[in-house]
């Protein structure tokens, strides 16, 4: 008996024949006909015309036939809603069937029929099935709630199914528990603010028990759900970890990866000196290595995840280099991923082995793989200084092979090596020049031109070489054109006598004959520089360049932390946050790693956050010794404070741009790439940052005023004409609605041995910044600046080092923007918004305290849904309500609401009663506290009444201050 024959009937009049067969009296014939219908449906033929006939076959005791009819129904019910009603009776009847398999089948299928009228009928049977005596029916019903919620969320809430679903978490059958957890997790994703998955120690305990007993898939659901929980303290965290670790030995890789996710996340909370912490680290390595013996597709998923884990916690796999060696038969996607991890694990200890491997790979067949291997050799040179020489000689060997793409790739990486170790390997330049003619890729050509320009004084025929490129100037790609322009200007500054003609030629090509604005502008800037002040031009163009850092390809830390929370999922495979590839609101909330013990009270729920800290004694600035110690730690970190580098500020710029709403646009999927530029692709941009103070990168800087001061300070010698350009940039670069108070004096020069600090706070595109002006009023030069905050109420802490890149000369002022994060240690301050700061320089450590507006902490997604607002308003006890008067505001309610929105105070609803506008507003703080407000505005009355309700009433006062500030400025 073969069913394949059903696939082959393609006669005309087929539908008509099928109709006759479906209505046949013979059961066998009917079944045959339905099979034919399903086969046609599979290959994409439209058989919806047979709907009534197929539905007629539904009333049968033959289960196989019934399933086929159901399959048909699921596919076509939506296109024939009226006729689908015909099926309802059978469903309802089947839900009462004595056979549990049939009951479950009915409830399972009904949930898949997305017709409103049918969903109404579904409620009663579903309610019964959720309480069915048979676990098979209950587990099916649990999933059905999620299906129904997808069709009509309101209905599910109104019918109270969510509560029933919650009860199922305590079910005696592990599979029911697992499915209920899966359904609840899914529903909770589309209600980010609801406390649906009310995870508390009791439910966690239930889940952990079910974990031991349910199927492999159920274990995955439960582990993925557990990963969303934030333990109260490190002890709870440890006990959960202990109960999850056995899962690392499961045969199912997905169970293992989900367990790894839970452990990686909860490990954050464990104190590092704990013995258990070390044990746990050791336990993680073997299962990760084992994943590499799975099927290739799973290996790929595992490798993408290991890539993240290695960046987060390099210590776990540092001894496992060998397992990442590429096998000859690995699929190409596995090879490429392994290569990436090999570079990340490369260290002085294993570099010899790694290099030998890489050299081996560079002779393989696959072009992409070979290129990556060559690039990897260059990265090793940059990463492990001791190996640089060997890497260079390996690269030279590879150039000798004359394989075109190998040569080009090698030249690109050698350029990076030059940037890391200037004036060390110039002896190879001659060899490189020999291969000039074979370069046909823009990146390689640009790299070669850069090298020629950079070392023009040592290459006798540099002018000839560059001139040869100039002939086809307009056929080159922009990258090459820009590079050529810069290189010739460099050459001119080094050998002005012979090259005057050349430089004029290139400047006119760039400015007059090109329609590329970047090229034209760079041409003009050089031109003006050269004509105004050649000496200054020399200082700018030939200035010493920052060394490239070894880890430019790392994923940006906040993204990395988010991805760690998504281990095992698609996000971790793409290395992108879910919002980059998931439509709609589902699953787009950003996940965060929990904070380490001690600061654990920064807390998810506002109650814990507040009551936990309110008993804490009022903070005093710790003794100088403590803080000094902390600051010393700060220095030990690989901070960029001592190495002048424009790069971090550029990265900030990129982040800022992206934060500003671009996320929500479809197709912005290159986030990762933008934030972690490869060493070779971004050099021209950074190069210029160093050359002329960042002006050509204006595009990036426009949206990111933060980048401006840093970039400026890097080129102090640029005066005159270029100054206007910066002013222009600064003017355009303040588009956000956030009100920024003018800078106030934080630290007078008297108290700080001549250092004067004034500043203000701002929130730009979701990023909190502290804008500081540092003025040197002393006689000597100040260097080595660093900053640190004392614990504070909202965990504010610097998210990057203080970017003072050049020494501060007497009477000089530098503007710095310090990005702040809110994940620092928490301690309640008096007043609440007080911030104690320590600034260090080469002279001493200075302390001051300042107060920030609370609106700094109002987050962008603070708009509550109406219902939630209503419920929350009622829920908060009346004692927590505070009333304030805002006087002398001459705005109507709409203007006020617009203005407030700029500071993330969102108006949810407006009601007008008796010429009085009532605005209902919500605010969310960075630590998850919600503030609800009602603002009454009477037409013609400049005084507003403001009622604020919040579970943490302490903040009301400060929220009121923000309203005042925003409305009056």
């Amino acid at each position: 008996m073969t069913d394949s024959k059903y696939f082959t009937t393609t006669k005309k009049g087929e539908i008509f024949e099928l109709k006759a067969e479906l209505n046949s009296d013979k059961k066998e014939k009917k079944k045959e006909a339905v099979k034919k219908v399903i086969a046609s449906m599979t290959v994409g033929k439209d058989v919806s015309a047979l709907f009534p006939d197929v539905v007629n076959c539904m009333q049968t005791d033959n289960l196989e036939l019934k399933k086929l009819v159901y399959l048909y129904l699921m596919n076509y019910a939506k296109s024939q809603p009226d006729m689908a009603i015909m099926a309802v009776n059978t469903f309802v009847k089947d839900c009462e069937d004595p056979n549990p398999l049939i009951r479950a089948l009915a409830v399972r299928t009904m949930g898949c029929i997305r017709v409103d009228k049918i969903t109404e009928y579904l409620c009663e049977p579903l309610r019964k099935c959720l309480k069915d005596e048979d676990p098979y029916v209950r587990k099916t019903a649990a999933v059905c709630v999620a299906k129904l919620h997808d069709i009509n969320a309101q209905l599910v809430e109104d019918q109270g199914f969510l509560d029933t679903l919650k009860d199922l978490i305590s079910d005696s059958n592990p599979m029911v528990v697992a499915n209920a957890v899966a359904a609840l997790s899914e529903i909770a994703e589309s209600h980010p603010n609801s406390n649906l998955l009310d995870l508390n120690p009791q439910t966690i305990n239930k889940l952990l028990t079910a974990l031991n007993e349910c199927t492999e898939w159920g274990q995955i659901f439960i582990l993925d759900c557990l990963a969303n929980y934030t333990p109260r303290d490190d002890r709870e965290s440890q006990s959960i970890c202990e109960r999850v670790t056995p899962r690392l030995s499961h045969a199912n890789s997905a169970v293992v990866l989900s367990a790894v996710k839970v452990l990686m996340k909860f490990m954050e909370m464990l104190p590092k000196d704990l013995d258990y912490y070390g044990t746990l680290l050791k336990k993680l390595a073997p299962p990760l290595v084992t994943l590499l013996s799975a099927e290739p597709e799973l290996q790929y998923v595992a490798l993408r995840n290991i890539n993240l884990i290695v960046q987060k916690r390099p210590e776990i796999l540092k001894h496992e280099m060998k397992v990442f060696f590429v096998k000859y038969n690995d699929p190409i996607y596995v090879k490429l991923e392994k290569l990436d991890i090999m570079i990340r694990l490369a260290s002085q200890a294993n570099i010899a082995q790694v290099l030998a491997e890489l050299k081996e790979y560079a002779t393989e067949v696959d072009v992409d793989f070979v290129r990556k291997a060559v690039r990897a050799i260059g990265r090793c040179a940059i990463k492990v200084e001791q190996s640089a020489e060997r890497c260079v000689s390996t690269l030279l060997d590879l150039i000798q092979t004359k394989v075109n793409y190998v040569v080009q790739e090698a030249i690109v990486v050698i350029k990076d090596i030059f940037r890391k170790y200037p004036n060390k390997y110039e002896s190879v330049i001659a060899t490189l020049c020999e291969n000039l003619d074979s370069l046909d890729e823009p990146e390689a050509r640009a790299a070669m031109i850069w090298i020629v320009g950079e070392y023009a004084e040592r290459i006798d025929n540099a002018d000839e070489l560059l001139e040869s490129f100039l002939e086809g100037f307009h056929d080159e790609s922009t990258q090459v054109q820009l590079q050529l322009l810069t290189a010739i200007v460099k050459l001119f500054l080094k050998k002005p006598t012979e090259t005057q003609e050349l430089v004029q030629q290139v400047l006119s090509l760039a400015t007059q004959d090109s329609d590329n604005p970047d090229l034209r502008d760079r041409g003009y800037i050089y031109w003006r520089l050269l004509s105004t002040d050649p000496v200054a031009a020399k200082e700018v163009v030939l200035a010493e360049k920052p060394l490239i850092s070894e880890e430019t390809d790392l994923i940006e830390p906040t993204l990395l932390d988010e991805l760690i929370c998504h281990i095992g999922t698609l996000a971790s495979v793409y290395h992108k946050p879910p919002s980059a590839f998931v439509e709609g609101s589902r699953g787009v909330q950003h996940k965060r790693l929990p904070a380490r013990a001690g600061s654990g009270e920064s807390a998810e729920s506002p109650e814990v956050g507040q009551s936990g800290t309110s008993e804490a004694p009022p903070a005093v600035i710790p003794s100088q010794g403590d803080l000094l110690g902390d600051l010393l730690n700060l220095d030990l970190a690989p901070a960029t404070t001592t190495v002048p580098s424009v790069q971090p500020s550029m990265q900030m710029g990129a982040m800022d741009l992206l934060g500003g709403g671009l996320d929500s646009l479809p197709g912005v999927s290159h986030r990762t790439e933008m934030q972690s530029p490869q060493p070779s692709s971004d050099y021209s941009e950074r190069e210029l940052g160093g050359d002329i103070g960042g002006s050509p990168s204006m595009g990036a800087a426009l949206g990111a005023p933060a980048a401006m001061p840093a970039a400026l300070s890097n080129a102090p010698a640029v005066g005159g004409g270029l100054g206007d350009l910066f002013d222009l940039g600064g003017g355009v670069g303040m588009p956000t609605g956030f009100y920024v108070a003018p800078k106030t004096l934080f630290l007078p020069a008297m108290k700080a041995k001549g250092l004067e600090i004034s500043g203000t706070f701002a929130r730009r595109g979701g990023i909190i910044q502290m804008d500081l002006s540092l003025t040197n009023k002393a006689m000597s030069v100040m260097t080595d600046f660093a900053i640190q905050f004392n614990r504070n109420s909202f965990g504010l802490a610097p998210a990057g080092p203080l970017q003072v890149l050049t020494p501060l000369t007497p009477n000089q002022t530098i503007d710095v923007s310090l990005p702040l994060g809110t994940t620092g240690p928490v301690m309640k301050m008096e007043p609440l918004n007080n911030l104690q700061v320590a600034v260090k320089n080469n002279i001493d450590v200075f302390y001051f305290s300042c107060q920030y507006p609370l609106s700094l902490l109002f987050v962008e997604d603070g708009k509550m849904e109406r219902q939630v607002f209503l419920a929350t308003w009622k829920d908060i006890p009346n004692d927590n309500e505070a009333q304030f008067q805002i006087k002398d505001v001459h705005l109507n309610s709409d203007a006020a609401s617009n203005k407030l929105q700029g500071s993330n105070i969102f108006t949810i609803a407006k009601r007008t009663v008796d010429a009085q506008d009532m605005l209902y507003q919500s605010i969310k703080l960075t630590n998850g506290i919600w503030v609800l407000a009602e603002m009454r505005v009477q037409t013609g009355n400049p005084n507003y009444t403001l009622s604020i309700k919040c579970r943490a009433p302490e903040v009301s006062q400060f929220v009121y201050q923000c309203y005042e500030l925003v409305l009056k400025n």
Partner: protein
Amino acid sequence: MIGGLFIYNHKGEVLISRVYRDDIGRNAVDAFRVNVIHARQQVRSPVTNIARTSFFHVKRSNIWLAAVTKQNVNAAMVFEFLYKMCDVMTAYFGKISEENIKNNFVLIYELLDEILDFGYPQNSETGALKTFITQQGIKGQTKEEQSQITSQVTGQIGWRREGIKYRRNELFLDVLESVNLLMSPQGQVLSAHVSGRVVMKSYLSGMPECKFGMNDKIVIDKQGKGGTTDDAGKSGKQSIAIDDCTFHQCVRLSKFDSERSISFIPPDGEYELMRYRTTKDIILPFRVIPLVREVGRTKLEVKVVIKSNFKPSLLAQKIEVRIPTPLNTSGVQVICMKGKAKYKASENAIVWKIKRMAGMKESQISAEIELLPTNDKKKWARPPISMNFEVPFAPSGLKVRYLKVFESKLNYSDHDVIKWVRYIGRSGIYETRC
């Protein structure tokens, strides 16, 4: 979760299409065909994102299985599920081929309905599925039978049904190891590991409780501390260090974690009890010593020696050495001491086969390879020399110490069970660079 599941033949025609979520439309079926199956290039990733829809695929012979989603699903789970799906189909109708899929499409739809609900994988153990998804229909069942099915499908022991009876209680244990090696031309071990599996075939009555023991270093050291010193000293030498192991879902993992004891109620019939990996003290059954010499531009001289490195009383079988040759080879002359060697132009390799070889022996092959002169600047990549073989021992040194069976309700004891143990070591990727 999984939004839809499609099966295609090699031409990209849809054989099975099941949609679970509303966000997946019919156009997804075509998107995958056009962008992946019909794309001319090699597959660059098993996960493809086309217009915000993610496609996961695996290939079995020339059949493509693709799972589709628009959400941030657990990617590892989706692949595990696809493999599982293949296992289930194989268990039902044998090889996954276009013909078999077409012949069983009704069954496949029925299975898909059962093992995936709204995109969430449900119980997919073949043992359990076979009790109620049959092509015969299930109407003849009594109420007890029905509830037994449902409790098994959802229960804690979903992999085994109650009431199994055998006249003869018997079990077979196969320790199957594949030994992997990458060696430098100079004979330095670059990497070596054994990945092993313990496969069990059980024909036992009732719900037997089993306990499996092997010469795991951690267990033996632990016992050695408390036990007699004499015994510990002896077994200490023979114990092996297991880097990592994973178990079938029947094994109680929490018990393994706390006591390192492997206890379980086995599924009926054949299944994989555990997988493990070792990297220390591996017995490498063969050593390959290559010597490649380029004589001028048109000639290569190759000499390869293989040495067997195990007890002389044991016999290795199915030995095959594969020596790659350059693409521009025009002719090959081979001389070998033992077995048969042939130049296979289509595979660009000399294949040397030896049927049997005892331990501590040595054999040699030498070949002269004539090359056509070419202008190609690209050097020959010199792929490694690979080897295949089978040996009757476990290269990791793993030994089964016991497998105890307890069934309290039925009247058979551990002694009545007939047990068989077999060790097979095979070559995995066993390569020597030349």
